[in-house]
């Protein structure tokens, strides 16, 4: 299958804010997982987890990536930190020393640098920490690898980092089971930030946390961003958290970006029917708004990513779909300054946002 590369990687993808320098960009990034079957274990198809994503992240911004489960947002995030190498297409990263790294072709040495500059915070603090390691080992490991530190120098850095995320350095010899969910997420954050990264992929970093702890961690992430001049790719399914934290938001559906806009504009006036439906489904924490602004109920489920529909992948659930949508795949294009949408009808539709 082909995407309209001319449009996709052309000027349209440049909708990043003009004032910021590009920090990381992907071009036509694809991750296809083979499906094997039959007694000879032959490849019978591919799950197109990520299917042609062009995304530019600007230095210093927080870019939100939202979508339902199975839309490929986590796979996209893990491609960026290269936890697998099943991807095709390019990821270019502008490193601290001014070099532009082609992430797919890094040497061992470069990969080490890359992995200390680009870090990931994982979703579940209960399963992402090794239960047999102490905090000192968990948080210190990236430093050992990246900078070859050991002994007192290592401990000092670990202690400073623990203090910074709100944990007491005296707990360094304890194991993860001794901590609550919120504290463990602080450990995860400490581990991600200890080698002084510049780019952080936060994959559902607050989703497993209780409300009262979640607000603490969100505040911590904002403080750390200012302090260490970080760029965030914030992956989440929680639209209210994303609105709170992010400068721009990319909406993903079935392996592709369908809309990318500055946060306030996306929430006030979405330019893709899927964004509209997602926003209308978010429960509003006020009983007086209960029956206002009717919810758009999406019929059916997300299509099978190994067998996506022809044309626009959202058309099977879209209430505005026309014949054109089945016939032609809509490219992600600039529909207003700084706003991208992959909908044939983005200009005609009047979509409802949230106040």
């Amino acid at each position, binding site marked *: 299958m082909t995407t309209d590369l001319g449009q996709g990687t052309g000027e349209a993808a440049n909708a990043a804010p003009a004032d910021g320098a590009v920090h990381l960009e992907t071009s036509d990034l694809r991750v296809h997982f083979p499906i094997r079957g039959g007694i000879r274990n032959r490849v019978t198809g591919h799950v197109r987890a990520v299917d042609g994503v062009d995304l530019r992240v600007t230095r210093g911004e927080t870019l939100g990536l939202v979508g*339902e*489960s199975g839309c490929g947002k986590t796979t996209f995030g893990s491609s960026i930190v290269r936890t697998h190498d099943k991807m095709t297409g390019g990821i270019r990263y502008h490193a601290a020393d001014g070099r532009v790294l082609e992430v797919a072709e890094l040497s061992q040495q470069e990969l080490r640098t890359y992995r200390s500059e680009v870090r990931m915070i994982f979703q579940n603090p209960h399963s992402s920490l090794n239960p047999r390691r102490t905090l000192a080992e968990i948080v210190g490991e990236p430093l050992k690898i990246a900078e070859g530190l050991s002994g007192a120098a290592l401990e000092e850095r670990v202690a400073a980092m623990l203090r910074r995320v709100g944990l007491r350095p005296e707990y360094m010899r304890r194991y993860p089971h001794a901590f*609550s*969910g*919120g*504290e463990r997420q602080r450990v995860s954050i400490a581990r991600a930030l200890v080698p002084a990264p510049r780019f952080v992929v936060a994959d559902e970093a607050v989703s497993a946390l*209780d*409300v*009262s*702890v*979640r*607000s*603490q961690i*969100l*505040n911590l992430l*904002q403080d750390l961003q200012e302090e260490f001049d970080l760029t965030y790719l914030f992956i989440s*399914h929680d*639209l*209210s*958290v994303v*609105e*709170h*934290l992010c400068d721009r938001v990319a909406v993903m559906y079935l392996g592709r970006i369908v809309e990318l806009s500055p*946060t*306030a504009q996306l*929430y006030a006036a979405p330019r893709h029917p899927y964004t509209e*439906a*997602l*926003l*209308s*489904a*978010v*429960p*509003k*924490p*006020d*009983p*007086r*708004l*209960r029956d206002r602004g009717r*919810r758009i*109920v*999406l019929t*059916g*489920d*997300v299509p099978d990513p190994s067998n996506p529909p022809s044309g626009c992948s959202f058309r099977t659930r879209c209430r505005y779909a026309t014949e054109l949508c089945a016939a032609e795949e809509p490219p992600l294009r600039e529909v207003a300054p700084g706003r991208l949408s992959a909908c044939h009808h983005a200009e005609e539709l009047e979509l409802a946002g*949230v*106040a």
Partner: protein
Amino acid sequence: MTVPSTGAPLVEVKGLRTHFTTDETTVQAVDGVDLTIRRGRTLCVVGESGCGKSVTARSILQLVEPPGRIVDGSILLHHPAEDGSSQPPVDLAALSPHGRRIRDIRGKDIAMIFQEPMSSLSLVHRVGSQIGEALRVHSDISRKEARRRAVELLGTVGIPDPAKRADAYPFQLSGGMCQRVMIAMALACDPALLIADEPTTALDVTTQAQIMDLLRGLQRETGMAIMFITHDMGVVAEMADDVAVMYLGTVVEKGPVDDVFHAPKHPYTRALLDSIPKIGSARRQRLPSIRGTVPDPARRPSGCVFHNRCAEFMPGRCDVTLPPPVAVAPDREVRCLLHGSTDDQPAAPATATSKEQR
């Protein structure tokens, strides 16, 4: 809402205590809970993990797993007899967890759905026969009739092409579809109360919206009461008629949903409402948050269980006195010394002016 504003009490939980005792410690997971579930209405029980909301729900059905045990209190189920005449309420807390009485009530009078629909369904049975089984346990009908009813129920919960889907295995259905199957199974015997324990937490927002619409529609049709357990204030605002806010094994505040959201009395409720990011509010501002974390339930703080995280903590009082439940309005109760406590303070909304401590 078409639900009658005052339903008669269906289930009354009084002074419920469910403790988990091991050799080393006793965890007081539920410690003195009073709740009233009314016919035709939805009670949302909201709280953070470890507050005892699920254990309360499981206690109602005697589904608490050992070493957990109901040590005190009563759970009165008011249900009319088969012929419609009134009969004395049954105390569910006094029934044996393995006895015949409770097994007759489970699924028939009170049904329950869970957070993970995938892991609550049998992997090796077709969904139609799983629903049929729920029917055949409580009524004497043929297999064929059970199958017919199962297909009908799958249609009721909005599963397209129910006759075909009845032959599907759970792994062939999406998470949202599995939750619909669970709901169909729960509805099989037309229960008076449906207990829903975080039924939408594992689902996407769009699916969550579908399931909430479905439950509200079914309630309008059947008049069943719903006890809805969740940690999400947004879901509470959408679903509840009445709200009970739980913290560390006790109900700290309860009342009609509008009052709880627009005139919260307990500092914990207020802090919870403040700490959620609201769509449309100013972006990038720091969120007010509650300091510290929920204490280990095995080491409950003295006095008011919330005192060590409370912004309005009064030394010498909150850490000493366990606040009694105080009725601040009809159907409105709060456990906080700021409200109508021993020295008879008026039950005015306690704002920051109440006490300048700390």
